[in-house]
């Protein structure tokens, strides 16, 4: 085990894959000479050289699409998208080209590429640099979508992503880059497998990315015995683990840092409700952000993503009542 910051775990995973497989190449904006705007590629150019490690122009469609093409010819490109929003200008190459190549080649081609992108609110970057946007990808068959919650999962998920034969999107909560944790570099996650952050008996909380940490704090604050499932992969998601947990506890809350409408948590709540209806003790529900852009002002942004206080309030509600609680903005009469 080695103590690392999350951003260092990302560097370590990339470096380990680049050492293990010379087909792994890496590019993005200011990732080579400057070692990444978030310092997520420190030492990579120095160790692997300018053929495999490249700075790009500000051309996300061009270089993300080039990663698709290079992957089809046998390389394993890793591209860095500084803020997930910048993938907006490259969506065709990801969603409509890259994700369809295996299908349109009758299985003869694969696209073993990895897209890393920073996501999330909380740092005052405003509404065009603070979204998570996982739902852009979660409904695109052919893509795999991962999100780490700490240094270990940042390492183990990125290694899994690079080794995977399909296009994988790794969404990295920007707010965690500087967080420290212990990392076992022998661990590579199986894509599609959730991880149990905590185990308990009264309720199942499913969360992703930084919301796992928020949920963990909320469970402590609420003083309950809960299973905390760190989903890690949105597609394909770990039905087995989630269903087994809810079967045991009879209660489910999903915590998402994304707008209420169209979130991945709906899929989980729907699946659990349909399959475990008769063993549920209370209504499964989601805790999300309101359907609003991420506000810049610090006080407002602090209320945007689910907070541990509010998650604790809703956990207590779930344990005492059978119906779902209201989101804070309804409970406080701020919005409908």
């Amino acid at each position, binding site marked *: 085990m080695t103590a690392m910051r999350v951003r260092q775990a990302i560097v370590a995973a990339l470096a380990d894959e680049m050492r293990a497989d010379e087909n792994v190449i890496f590019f993005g904006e200011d990732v080579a000479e400057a070692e990444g705007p978030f310092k997520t590629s420190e030492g990579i150019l120095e160790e692997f050289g300018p053929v495999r490690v490249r700075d790009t*122009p500000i051309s996300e469609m061009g270089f993300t699409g080039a990663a698709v093409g290079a992957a089809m010819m046998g390389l394993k490109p890793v591209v860095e998208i500084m803020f997930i929003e910048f993938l907006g200008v490259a969506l065709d190459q990801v969603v409509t080209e890259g994700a369809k190549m295996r299908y349109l080649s009758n299985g003869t081609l694969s696209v073993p590429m990895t897209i890393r992108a920073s996501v999330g609110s909380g740092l005052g970057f405003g509404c*065009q640099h603070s979204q998570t946007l996982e739902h852009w990808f979660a409904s695109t068959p052919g893509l795999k979508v991962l999100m780490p919650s700490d240094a270990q999962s940042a390492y183990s998920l990125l290694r899994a992503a690079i080794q995977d034969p399909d296009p994988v999107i790794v969404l990295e909560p920007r707010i965690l880059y500087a967080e420290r944790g212990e990392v076992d570099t022998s661990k590579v996650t199986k894509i599609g497998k959730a991880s149990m952050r905590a185990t308990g008996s009264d309720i199942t909380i499913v969360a992703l990315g930084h919301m796992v940490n928020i949920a963990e704090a909320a469970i402590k604050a609420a003083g309950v015995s809960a299973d905390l499932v760190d989903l890690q992969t949105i597609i394909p998601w770990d039905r087995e683990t989630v269903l087994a947990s809810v079967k045991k506890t009879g209660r489910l809350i999903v915590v998402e840092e994304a707008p209420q409408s169209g979130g991945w948590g709906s899929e989980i709540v729907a699946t659990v409700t349909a399959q475990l209806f008769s063993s549920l003790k209370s209504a499964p529900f989601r805790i999300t952000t309101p359907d609003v852009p991420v506000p810049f002002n610090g006080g407002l942004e602090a209320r945007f993503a689910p907070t541990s206080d509010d998650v604790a309030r809703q956990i207590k509600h779930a344990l005492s009542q059978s119906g779902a609680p209201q989101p804070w903005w309804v409970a406080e009469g701020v919005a409908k």
Partner: protein
Amino acid sequence: MTTSLERRNALYGNDLACYERMVEIREFEKITNALFAAGSIRGTTHLAVGQEALALGMATTLKPTDVIAGTYRSHALALAFGLTPHSVLGEIMGKATGCCGGVGGSMHMCDTSVGVLPTSAIIGGGMPIAAGAALAFQVQKSKNIGVALFGDGATNIGAFHESLNLAAIWKLPVVFICDNNVYGEYSRINTTTPIEDLHKRAESFAMPHMAIDGMDIHAVRKGISEAVDRARSGGGPTLVEAKTYRFSGHSRADQALYRPEGELEKWQKRDPLLVTEQDLIARKLITQDQIDQMKSTMESDLGALAKKVESDPEPELSAMFSNIWTPAKAGK
């Protein structure tokens, strides 16, 4: 209270007022930088030190009814086009008094009373929008024009090429102004772009183009007015490349240690404030003493403003839920 429009109108035909506004921008950015360093501002910021002549040249060539779509490097544009230092700093500090009510932040300036459309934090984001505004003016038979302001780095993104092509075939009343400050983030232009004279990219769209000295307000005005006249009179779009230099790092955290030695110093000799001062002194419109006086007054005025803005009200919680959409009006 002075309105944005009054502040804008005060600039036309008044070179001294333009210079004073340039000083305002320079001092404003110093204060912004200091407030960031002191932790009074969240997030990030992109200073426009060195871009003052371009901003003022545009502001005094365009009419307040023309519209401009700019970028996250937004403070000089906003102040030059008329926004008050209070509304700009208020926004940067996330206050209810900011031009976007505090929900936008440093990268997002807007004031439709002087034609400043919301500045975009996405590279290329404003270019198709400027073309679209010009399309509206064309259809409406208005004499207004659209302007896109963007960086050198932005000429490598698809939106640049698509917008120019569209504007060219539709002969849209739009001016594309590229602020070539030599750097895109931490990368010098030669490492990302095979040519340095970016205006030549217009040739493949059969579009008129020119390079101008972006450090000299007179050169900026001369170049831009040619393009503006063409657009206003139905002659279609122009690509104008202003040669400038980014005196600060890319954003808050960047110390710009990657610059070649001596490059900054070379450009500092062409500092737009210095160039304007020399011109005004030669024309006997101002003395060095008056310049020094103006700068120190500006510094203390803006310092006092910053103190005031720090205690301005925060936006209400309801601001988070406002201005997202309005209920449908059509249909039943």
